[in-house]
């Protein structure tokens, strides 16, 4: 988990669309993950990702784990570029419109001390 810099995340006023864009995020390239002997190399990743709510509302509420999500199922698309300088490797995805995600959600969540069970 990394902090998003100012301006990296834009959410529409109605909360139905979100665009996340970050450049040259320092990451660890670890092709054999999750193998215990997986070797990691420093890399950078730049990406742009867009979530768009569909009309399908969702509410996940779990009093035992103390969280509630109210939002929408969504579509999500991604374009990205990765560079691993130590081995001279780089990779660039096709345009964002060519990708898709099998599952996506966008909404509001409360958990922990902010959670209050529904009555």
């Amino acid at each position, binding site marked *: 988990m*990394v902090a998003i810099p100012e301006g990296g995340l834009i959410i529409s006023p109605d909360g139905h669309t979100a665009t*996340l864009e970050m450049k040259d995020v320092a990451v660890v390239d670890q092709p054999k993950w999750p193998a215990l002997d997986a070797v990691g190399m420093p890399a950078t990743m730049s990406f742009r990702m867009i979530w768009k709510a569909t009309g399908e509302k969702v509410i996940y509420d779990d009093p035992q784990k103390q*969280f509630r999500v109210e939002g929408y199922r969504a579509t999500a698309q991604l374009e990205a570029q990765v560079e691993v300088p130590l081995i001279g490797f780089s990779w660039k995805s*096709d345009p964002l419109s060519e*990708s898709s995600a099998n599952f996506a959600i966008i909404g*509001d969540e409360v958990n922990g001390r902010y959670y209050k069970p529904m009555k």
Partner: protein
Amino acid sequence: MSSTDDVRSCCTRRIFLSTALSIASAGAVSLLLSNEAAADNKPPHSKLSTYNGDTDPYPIPWLDKNGSHNQPAGPQMEPSHIYHFKGRVARCAGFVGMGTDNMGNRIAFGTPTTDYGFMQGEYFAGRTPQTGAFTHI
């Protein structure tokens, strides 16, 4: 040419999300270490510290048992990686897409665990509410 035949098969076999998950794990861990320890890539000092004095987000307790601090996105699953949180969230998983490496090889990305998300809002840490925006990549 098959990507797995490449002499740099460790690279061409890469599945984009595997990389991303490594990133997420590393990122989460670094947030839980002191800045100094994370920056120097050294073990944290032996002096004990508590989360009470730190403004970094607190991980979801039951997701921390394996040190990964996260779980794949899915129906009925909690999107946030931050405990004591309220705000906007989005998650996605199971990406399908293609890309090209610098050798011209076409390489797909996306596995069932390809998983991204963000959390923007208020979280409680250091005994007081904090605000911030974080991503899991």
